[in-house]
């Protein structure tokens, strides 16, 4: 325990003891009341607060074990009071044991007992397990009330929960306006509480700020009760208290219904009184979005009026997506500022004279960072729509095409609730339709054929979507005849896309990727051969434009699977910042496998292509300064870096001079005037107006493999 003065120690122990004794009493009461009707929320709350205070105390005085114990107990109690777990016998037992352990810890700290306290860790684990067993309750709908948003704004999370719970249980809400003399307020309050308790629950007390006299105070008390207004008036009314019922909002036909949400449950973010810009079809998200507190009540007189309306709770707003783009742009600009502030903060912190300012700056920067991240996610969530919309459309296409092609095809969809940026969904429509059409027209065999090889007469096309880290993966799979590699290769050779000698070196995956080459897409040639018809190169380009990649896997006679991997968001990506001849460039981290130092001794040349061996596999290299025709006055670096980028199965080492660092960047597209320039996915602003070009890894890889005359297609494996 921390070194404190004697007086402080005394205070610590005496307060701790007092709290623990109170805890004990309350727990006993809780135990006694179990099974005899609803659990008294006030009791649970008191116990929670007691543990919370103990935690604070322990923290202040450095009593680590007590702190840890309080932390776990607090979680369990918070879950209990917020209704996330039930008050079972197990829970009660654990709480009682907790109290015993408190006693032991205090004794040890005081020095009056020697106790190794070795069983604490096990106990903490049991507490943690109890906390994790929370159930997600389904949201309950109910009528809602006319409540001042200003009132809602000052409810703590716990009070909000109590309000919601009472509404769900069908209680009515009442507002009591009382005036107390400050001198006697404790007694008067206590008496009011005692009178009110049997009839309902007091949610909160709000000082109105009215009442000019300094020696009295006026309060609005929000109370939930099943009793009627008259009954309450007779019990609690009088000169000191005016009681009004908070009117229920009349249910017009179009009024959206209040869906109270619980933190952690699958419901739209808590929007009591706060309009939410959630599109109606979006599935609920478990993470709560940062809230905008309601506006303060105007002037001083709002409370005098009984009716102020609670705006409907799950309001939805139609948003022009361009406005969202604007907001995202602003977020992007703020990100740049945040990065700049971060760098500045680092410099300031290094200076000893500015230490205090540095600390402050650091704290502010961290806060800014958090808020910005929340803002960004918030806006992105607004843009997200479930893929299900697109999948439904595709299902209709499947029915139509299969009728035309006279084949029986079954479309199986999973992951329709996976959400993607709205713009991505729109761009995906064509490529996915393309793939499905090809699958039905060319891949899936005719009924007779299928039966002959022992497949079910009805062909299956599967559409799967799921989220993987910061990407969305969409798979299009069919159980058709698969891709005939031999024919694909000979078609490529015939069209001059592949040298005969390179053929033997091609690995399975390389062959399959030939499907994406323009020039192999003539239907007459390849439609029958490859199981794929027109336009796979277009599909690949379109997906590339979205910042995604497409991969293919196929087995002859069994089927083919295309895997499309897309970033969830278009706008902000993580990138590796590098320097080439003193100029700064960004490489999207999604394409980067690793960055390595180049050992000049490990390099060699094969047919004009520079290579190195990386963990047993050959890695072709591309000297970026040469590719870009950049030179500088500085002598060439002896040991430059290679940024290994990969797309699908192919890898390429981009040789750069310096690795600057990793950073989130806002990637902006280059204008049409630069469309013809190869190798760039866009540009980003790095701060103080400097622009860095963002490399297009897939394009560079393609250029290295298929473009340049010296590029050896077969030289890369793995």
């Amino acid at each position: 325990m921390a070194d404190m003065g004697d007086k402080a120690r005394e205070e610590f122990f005496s307060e701790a003891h007092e709290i623990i004794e109170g805890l004990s009493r309350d727990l006993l009461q809780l135990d006694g009341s179990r099974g005899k009707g609803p659990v008294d929320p006030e009791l649970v709350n008191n116990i929670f607060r007691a543990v919370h205070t103990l935690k604070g105390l322990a923290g202040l005085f450095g009593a680590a074990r007590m702190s840890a114990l309080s932390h776990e107990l607090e979680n369990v109690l918070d879950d209990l009071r917020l209704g996330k777990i039930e008050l079972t016998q197990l829970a009660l037992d654990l709480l009682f044991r907790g109290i015993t352990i408190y006693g032991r810890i205090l004794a040890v700290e005081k020095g009056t007992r020697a106790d190794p306290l070795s069983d604490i860790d096990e106990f903490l684990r049991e507490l943690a397990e109890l906390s994790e067993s929370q159930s997600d309750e389904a949201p309950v709908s109910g009528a809602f009330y006319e409540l001042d948003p200003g009132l809602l704004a000052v409810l703590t999370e716990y009070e909000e929960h109590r309000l919601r719970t009472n509404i769900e249980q069908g209680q009515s809400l009442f507002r009591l306006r009382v005036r107390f003399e400050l001198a006697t307020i404790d007694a008067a309050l206590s008496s009011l509480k005692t009178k009110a308790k049997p009839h309902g629950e007091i949610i909160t007390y709000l000082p109105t700020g009215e009442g000019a006299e300094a020696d009295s105070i006026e309060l609005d008390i929000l109370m939930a009760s099943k009793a009627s207004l008259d009954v309450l008036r007779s019990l609690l009314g009088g000169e000191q208290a005016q009681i009004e019922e908070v009117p229920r909002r009349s249910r017009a036909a179009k009024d959206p219904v209040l869906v109270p949400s619980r933190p952690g449950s699958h419901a739209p973010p808590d929007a009591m009184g706060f309009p939410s810009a959630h599109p109606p079809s979006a599935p609920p998200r478990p993470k709560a979005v940062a809230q905008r507190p309601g506006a303060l009540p105007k002037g001083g007189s709002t409370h005098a009026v009984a009716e102020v309306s609670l705006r409907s709770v799950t309001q939805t707003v139609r948003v022009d997506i361009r406005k969202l783009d604007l907001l995202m742009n602003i977020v992007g600009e703020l990100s740049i500022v945040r990065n700049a502030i971060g760098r500045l903060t680092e410099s300031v912190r290094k200076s000893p004279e500015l230490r205090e300012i540095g600390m402050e700056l650091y704290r502010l920067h961290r806060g800014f960072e958090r808020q910005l991240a929340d803002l960004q996610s918030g806006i992105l969530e607004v843009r997200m729509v479930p893929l299900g919309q697109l999948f439904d459309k595709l299902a209709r296409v499947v029915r139509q095409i299969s009728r035309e092609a006279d084949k029986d095809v079954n479309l199986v969809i999973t992951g329709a609730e996976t959400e993607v940026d709205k713009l991505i969904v729109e761009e995906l429509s064509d490529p996915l339709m393309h793939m499905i059409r090809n699958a039905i027209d060319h891949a899936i065999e005719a009924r007779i054929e299928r039966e002959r090889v022992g497949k079910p007469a009805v062909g299956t096309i599967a559409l799967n979507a799921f989220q993987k880290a910061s990407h969305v993966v969409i798979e299009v799979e069919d159980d058709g005849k698969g891709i005939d590699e031999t024919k694909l290769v000979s078609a490529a050779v015939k069209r001059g896309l592949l040298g005969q000698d390179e053929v033997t070196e091609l690995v399975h995956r390389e062959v399959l990727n030939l499907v994406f080459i323009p020039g192999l897409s003539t239907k007459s040639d390849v439609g029958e051969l490859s199981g794929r018809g027109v336009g796979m190169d277009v599909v690949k380009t379109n997906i590339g434009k979205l910042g995604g990649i497409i991969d293919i896997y196929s087995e002859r006679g069994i089927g083919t699977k295309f895997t499309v991997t897309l970033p969830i968001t278009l706008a902000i990506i993580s990138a590796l910042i590098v320097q080439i001849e003193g100029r700064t460039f960004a490489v999207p981290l999604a394409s980067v496998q690793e960055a390595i130092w180049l050992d000049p001794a490990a390099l060699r040349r094969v047919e004009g292509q520079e290579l190195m061996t990386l963990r047993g596999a050959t890695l072709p290299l591309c000297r970026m300064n040469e590719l870009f025709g950049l030179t500088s006055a500085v002598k060439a670096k002896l040991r430059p870096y290679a940024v290994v980028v990969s797309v699908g199965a192919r890898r390429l080492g981009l040789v750069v001079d310096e690795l600057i660092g990793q950073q989130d960047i806002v990637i902006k597209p280059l204008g049409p005037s630069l469309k013809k320039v190869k190798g760039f996915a866009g540009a980003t602003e790095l701060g103080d107006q400097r622009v860095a070009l963002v490399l297009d890894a897939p394009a560079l890889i393609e250029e290295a493999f298929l473009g340049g005359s010296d590029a050896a297609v077969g030289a890369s494996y793995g």
Partner: protein
Amino acid sequence: MADLLARGRNDRHRGIKVRGPRVEYLAFRLGADTYAVPIGEVREILKLPPVTEVPRAPEEIVGVVSVRGLLVTVISLRARLRLQATESSRKGRILLAMGAQDEVIGLYVDEVLQVYRLAESEIEVAASVLGGRLGDYIVGIGRPDGALLTLLDLRPILGRSEPVARDAT
């Protein structure tokens, strides 16, 4: 910009009488020659911000810059008009104009001079002055107060992706 307009007005007040409706032209220097474009075609004039070169881009492309977050491609007007190369000057400026497909383009010029308000009488339309076929981007010649301005129409200059053809002079 304000002082440029003021200068233009001052010139007029020096007592030279002109007639007819006026169009304002922004005059700038490319090399040793003075050109001008209708002021309405210039959205903004920028001092040189840091310009990022774009490797492997056509020679006329100077690079890209960021204008309050907007990415703008900067083209050398001199290069696009296939004029002789000159040294870069510290007075270089970027004129923002609207290109094809709603793209904002930056045109690099060696120096921005002033705004002239030209009356019809001060403009000699191209065909009559220079005779013969010319690139369709030259509107004519302006001669305010003895100055000689080659008046350009930016639209064909920007709407094309290739530099415009021009008779050798």
